[in-house]
């Protein structure tokens, strides 16, 4: 019995940091509507700065002072980030904000290693809370008890702040209706900045308070952000009480999950989240989300199929690509195969995002499932390569069918978070179910058969499949299905009023995209000769998002161009610099701020501008183009 009580208390103590970070994320979202992916990064910087300060300053005052100073310092960094970056993208679509803050996270990960080194840092114990308390023969660290008391105290302070101060009233008003608050003469800029500072302060405090419990390391940002997403989604974005309740719930699930289901402890939390989202899509304490706003600057030109000249150009490009083995070496061909595979991956997500309007943050799950599908078939069933390639993607298809069914019940940020969570479930299964998946060691030696073994043959195979997939998806964009899917993206109300079952359309699109991603994954398994949990990890999902955005979401061929440019750049960067994450993160931020339309979108815009200035343009055609810009 005593053991379970201690386990319960440990859970409560873990909830403290989670609550601090989650409440910060929630407050920021409530007012600015930004889901701050970089919140984990601020948490991590808080821990690192607190570590350095506690090492320098001595005594109890030094320790606790260092914690508070660290949190304030990070809040200051937050203010800087808000003023320099976020102010430029408040009116961008939610997806862009998530992505920009993700880029920031990548940059921070490299910067932290640059400053503090790659090794884990073990911090000092907290003065006054060094010992443990005996509880019927079980030890409870006294620092845990301190944390248990701390979170309700913070909750109380936040409550007072929001209920009893003028600032709090403004924040609550802005959470309900930003535009109204602005119309009443409140300086919105500074309100947003201050809210962001408070949110970041809480995250950094959460990180700083972790140092007596856990080592500080440079991957703690991603670990906490996934948990925090789960917490705010269960509790309801924008609700502090919700963050508190959900932080306790998640921490207890973790604490007891390990005892009851040691193999699937991670999954338990995500299952609870999935159930909550389906029963109450806006979380336990949240309010239903307002419909996503359309961005005024991003007017869309109606799409059209390629003209016959453009088709010839595309064919010529394909022929040039196919002639690569005539003059390139083996390394270039392997890179070429990888790029072709990522084209498949990117166009599958692009189809879902641009036509369906559904931004999946966990698309790698289906890519990875396709890869594992091949691995199972090849290693366990010993099937020939061609059969594996045909059947392997079906695992991605099945995964997409199951998860997609739940995911399409939601939209916007919640859809993004749920897909992310599902990807994490799949990842943790691959990671934890060692007897089947090999866990972290993966499944090795999946080599192509002789007919596809040479780099040039495999390259042709990958290129051919990529071309087929791209053509097939393009045909679908301009099929009746594609039209109807776009219709559900543009107006749910109208599409429902003309007999379209939007959820079924979206589900179908999700399955198509998942299966296509699975095809890419299947080829990837043969290219690398192995499968690892990383093949369905978050960073791969984000790679896909970046490729799509880089190419341009609101174009038809953005996926292809984005994948080629991004993947080539990525491979080149990794070979050139140790700070690839820093460069890549900066690159992402740059795209979001400077080229929100992506490469293809930019080219289209330039082409139009040229057409507009050329005199013989018919007035009927020229006019829509003018206003589309």
């Amino acid at each position: 019995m005593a053991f379970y009580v201690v386990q319960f208390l440990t859970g409560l103590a873990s909830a403290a940091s989670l609550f601090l970070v989650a409440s910060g994320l929630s407050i920021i979202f409530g007012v600015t509507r930004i889901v701050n992916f970089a919140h984990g990064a601020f948490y991590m910087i808080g821990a690192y700065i607190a570590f350095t300060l506690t090492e320098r300053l001595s005594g109890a005052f030094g320790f606790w002072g260092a914690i508070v100073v660290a949190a304030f310092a990070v809040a200051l960094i937050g203010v800087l980030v808000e003023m320099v970056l976020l102010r430029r993208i408040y009116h961008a679509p939610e997806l862009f904000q998530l992505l920009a803050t993700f880029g920031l996270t990548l940059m921070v990960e490299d910067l932290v290693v640059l400053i503090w080194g790659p090794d884990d840092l073990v911090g000092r114990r907290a003065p006054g809370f060094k010992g443990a308390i005996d509880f019927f023969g079980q030890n409870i660290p006294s620092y845990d008890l301190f944390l248990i008391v701390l979170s309700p105290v913070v909750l109380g302070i936040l409550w007072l702040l929001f209920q009893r101060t003028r600032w709090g009233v403004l924040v609550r008003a802005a959470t309900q209706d930003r535009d109204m608050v602005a119309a009443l003469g409140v300086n919105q800029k500074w309100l947003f900045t201050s809210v962001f500072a408070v949110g970041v302060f809480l995250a950094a405090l959460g990180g700083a308070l972790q140092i007596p419990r856990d080592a500080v390391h440079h991957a703690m940002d991603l670990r906490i952000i996934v948990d925090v997403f789960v917490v705010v989604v269960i509790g309801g974005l924008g609700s502090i009480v919700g963050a508190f309740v959900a932080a306790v719930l998640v921490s207890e699930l973790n604490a007891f999950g390990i005892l009851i289901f040691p193999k699937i402890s991670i999954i338990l939390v995500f299952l609870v989240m999935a159930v909550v989202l389906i029963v109450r899509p806006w979380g336990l304490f949240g309010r239903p989300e307002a419909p996503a706003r359309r961005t005024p600057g991003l007017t869309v030109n109606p799409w059209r199929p390629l003209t016959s000249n453009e088709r010839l150009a595309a064919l010529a490009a394909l022929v040039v690509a196919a002639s690569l083995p005539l003059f390139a070496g083996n390394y270039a061909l392997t890179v070429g195969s990888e790029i072709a595979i990522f084209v498949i991956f990117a166009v599958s997500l692009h189809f879902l995002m641009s036509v369906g309007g559904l931004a999946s943050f966990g698309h790698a799950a289906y890519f990875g499932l396709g890869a594992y599908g091949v691995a199972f078939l090849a290693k366990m069933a010993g099937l020939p390569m061609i059969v594996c390639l045909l059947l392997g993607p079906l695992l991605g298809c099945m995964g997409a069918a199951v998860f997609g069914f739940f995911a399409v019940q939601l939209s916007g940020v919640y859809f993004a978070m749920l897909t992310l969570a599902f990807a994490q479930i799949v990842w943790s299964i691959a990671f934890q179910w060692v007897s089947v998946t090999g866990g972290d060691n993966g499944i090795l030696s999946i080599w192509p058969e002789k007919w596809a073994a040479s780099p040039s043959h495999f390259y042709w195979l990958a290129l051919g499949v990529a071309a087929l997939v791209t053509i097939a998806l393009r045909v679908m964009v301009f099929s009746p299905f594609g039209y109807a899917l776009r219709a559900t993206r543009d107006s749910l109300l109208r599409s429902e009023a003309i007999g379209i079952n939007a959820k079924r359309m979206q589900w179908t699109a999700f399955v198509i995209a998942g299966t296509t991603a699975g095809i890419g994954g299947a080829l990837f398994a043969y290219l690398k000769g192995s499968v690892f949990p990383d093949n369905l990890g978050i960073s791969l999902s984000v790679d896909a998002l970046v490729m799509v955005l880089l190419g341009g979401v609101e174009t038809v061929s953005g996926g292809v161009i984005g994948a080629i440019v991004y993947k080539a750049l990525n491979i080149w960067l990794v070979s050139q610099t140790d700070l690839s994450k820093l460069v890549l993160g900066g690159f992402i931020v740059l795209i979001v701020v400077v080229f929100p339309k992506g490469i293809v979108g930019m080219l289209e815009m330039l082409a139009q501008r040229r057409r507009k200035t050329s005199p013989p343009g018919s007035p009927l055609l020229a006019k829509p183009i003018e206003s589309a810009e």
Partner: protein
Amino acid sequence: MSVAPPLLAVEGLTKSYGGIHAVRGVSFSLRAGEILALIGPNGAGKSTCFDMLNGQNRPDSGHVRLLGEETTGKKPRDVWRMGVGRTFQITATFATMTVRENVQVALISHGKQLFNLWGSAPNVDRGEAGRLLELVGMGGYADRPCGELAYGDLKRLELAVALANQPKLLLMDEPTAGMAPRERVELMRLTAQIAREKSIGVLFTEHDMDVVFEHADRIIVLNRGMLIAEGSPAEVRGNPQVQAVYLGEGLLYDAEHREGASA
């Protein structure tokens, strides 16, 4: 006169939100080819009533029948499949598609081609889409992006979309709201003409009494969720209860002046 059920029969429709009785026991019917206006002051329950007719909202009790078939409890998309088109108070169109494509999507849905992954959508029912656009006077705009249309044109496009499934009944929620006076007259004249030619029943809510009295065959008046009057424009205009509800909105003055002008 005949035993055939009316096009639309509404019986004892009731809806409450907490303690507020938005709609209380509303009953009326509508014949094919008839244009019926649903009027009432703000908060009378018009929109709630309207939304319950096509499944946007579910009544607490009461029935809505289309040609004798129950539509209550059905989803909007299923009601549409039964032959009910609708336009919205604030237009809902597909902003990133062209005007023609907007109509084509409705035709694709009507032709049950939604899950056709391989056909060429630009060619689906292109002619029919063109005809519908001609019908509402939008033929010259077919290739324009829908996002850049003027508001009045969006309303006409919505009408074309609503006509795509050859509806028996057209529901129009404040069809002329936000339009210039001349556009209002044009749109309603067009609607009335189409309704008579194709024998479509039209139910519309409207605040502009000029539009109502000029185009409605019959008017029903809602106040505080209850039906307080029903009849021809002349009857409704002379109804003292209606006058009491609308007093202060200049209706009496308007009515007197117009009697002489339009007679």
